[in-house]
């Protein structure tokens, strides 16, 4: 089978790839390239699709826009609020589920439910949980003497509300990944460590954590990228608004606003491009850290 590919073979090969390539090309590759160019449209007549001039005007605009900075800040708060909490909580739950408990499989299914449920449905449930008068969350807080919080209407509390819901929603998927990772660890290492004198916590810290690091690394990249891209949760939780007084506006929401509501395609594209660069940088940092920490 070491023959050189003939023209015919190549064409047949490409024809198999073609359906996927067309879909990817039309819905992914073309928009990416197009939006990259759009971000340089300085003067654009979108009725006639004529670009009068190119330039950095859009980038200059967004970097002078306080709303853009506000969205950036919100996004970073969101990422910091969601990523570490989501990873650590799902790791703990995964370890509990991995130990021999009764109804373990049932719990696995229950924890996976948020992942397969539509964001809109989840948001409706959480709107009830967060409800200032009838919500169950305020009811519980009332036990500790905390007066009702206007989770969804107070600009101060809209980000925490969003973060809590998103942590909860991200658990299912992360738990499944962690469970798979945990089951890949040979139980003999735990026996060996036990005989080497390691207590339960030390076995977790010196065996589970390092041997799980490839999974943790993968989970952290996925969660980070998803968190930077947060949009539908905001849209659904605050009924199509970026929170009270734009208090929960994230970058993608900013892009959405500029694109669909204000028809500022150039500015939206420029903001999208900035988001791309941010995610790219963070992923590079993660890859760098990952290479040093995750190898065995």
């Amino acid at each position, binding site marked *: 089978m070491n023959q050189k590919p003939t023209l015919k073979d190549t064409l047949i090969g490409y024809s198999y790839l073609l359906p996927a390539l067309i879909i990817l090309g039309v819905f992914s590759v073309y928009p990416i390239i197009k939006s990259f160019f759009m971000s340089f449209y300085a003067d654009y007549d979108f009725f006639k699709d004529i670009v009068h001039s190119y330039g950095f005007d859009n980038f200059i605009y967004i970097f002078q826009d306080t709303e853009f900075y506000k969205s950036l800040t919100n996004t970073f708060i969101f990422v910091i609020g969601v990523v570490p909490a989501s990873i650590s909580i799902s790791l703990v739950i995964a370890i509990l589920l991995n130990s021999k408990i009764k109804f373990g499989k049932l719990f696995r299914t229950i924890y996976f439910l948020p992942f397969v449920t539509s964001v809109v449905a989840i948001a409706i449930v959480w709107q009830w949980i967060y409800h200032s008068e009838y919500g169950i969350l305020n009811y519980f807080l009332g036990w500790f003497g905390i007066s009702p919080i206007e989770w969804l209407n107070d600009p101060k509390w809209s980000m925490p509300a969003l973060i809590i819901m998103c942590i909860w929603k991200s658990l299912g998927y992360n738990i499944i990944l962690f469970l798979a990772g945990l089951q890949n660890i040979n139980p003999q290492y735990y026996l060996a460590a036990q*005989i080497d*004198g390691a207590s339960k916590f030390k076995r977790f810290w010196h065996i589970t954590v390092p041997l799980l690091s490839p999974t943790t690394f993968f989970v952290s990249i996925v969660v980070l990228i998803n968190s930077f891209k947060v949009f539908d949760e905001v849209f659904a939780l605050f009924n199509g608004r970026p929170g009270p007084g734009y208090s929960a506006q994230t970058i993608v929401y900013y892009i959405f606003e500029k694109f669909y509501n204000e028809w500022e395609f150039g500015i939206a594209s420029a903001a999208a491009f900035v988001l791309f660069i941010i995610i790219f940088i963070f992923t590079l940092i993660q890859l760098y850290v990952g290479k040093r920490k995750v190898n*065995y």
Partner: protein
Amino acid sequence: MEIKLTNLAMDFQQTKAVNDLTITIQDGHLVSILGPSGCGKSTTLNMLAGLYKPTAGEIYFGDKLVNQVEPEHREIGMVFQNYALYPHLTVLKNIMFPLKMAKVNKKEAFERATEMAKLVQIDHLLDRKPGQLSGGQQQRVAIARALVKNPKVLLLDEPLSNLDARLRLEMREEIRRIQKEVGITTIFVTHDQEEAMSISDKILLMRDGTLQQYTTPLEMYDKPSNLFVSQFMGNPPINIYKATVNKELKRVELKNSNVHIPLLGNVDVTKFPEDVIVGIRPESFVSETSSKELPQVSISINLIERTGRDTLLSGKIGEQQVRALISSKQQLGNVEELSLYITEFTVFDSETENSIWYFDGEGAQ
């Protein structure tokens, strides 16, 4: 440290994995727990390690009852069958791990680990990860890690079964050397009788969870307590023949053949049961002897295998299969019939299968 097991038992649901085991292991001895798979040898080891809690009986380390002591506090070192080296740590850190857990300060831990690495001869590999080592090297690291915290007992769970034949030979000598040098009480689990014979001070042979015999390797080989022990020890296996005792003529007569073997020496035949089993080791056949009174049998030969050191003859005594191992120096040519002397054999009670008499050449002139 001396280890004492009294009436030790372990049940898994319906099956008795270990049944009423009472033995004492002397300080500094290397004891092999030997037996076919499923005989309870690994279960016994795991109980010694504390990974299983016995359902009955006591385990004493020295004078201390350790039944309820967790593995991490038993002061034991253990080498697993697949070594279980921590894949994310270097060789050095693997060896230092038990010391780190015991909160030994770093400098001392480093010194002790390197010293231990020298003992097992892997001090040139300290910066490698386990994945970069060969099976024999991993084995050495595992031994170093087990020994570094100066445990009182070393447990080895089939440590050689993942190695190839030549390396196995080398490593079992190494284990013996290291054990002697450190002087640690060692328990070695294996299913390979040759391994157990070569390495141990004493062998503990088990079958279906029950102790069969606990004695020195040579004694177990020469004086097996029952038929199972005699068949388990030795390769090629012992020849087994059903026979009846002729008390008047003081001899055993093999069934289905016209062969009889005299019972020589000081033996009280009257106490023998009617039906017995005679076990003759292949190497107990010799073609020449200075003593003329040794029992003699005639063998018709089917197959001759020369392996260099000795020659394996397969053939028949009367109607029964026989294997005999004789010196290669013996010129055989194309003989079809050969008369051989029997230097040793064992007589078992055919009902209880316990051994009742050993013939070791004494009584013959």
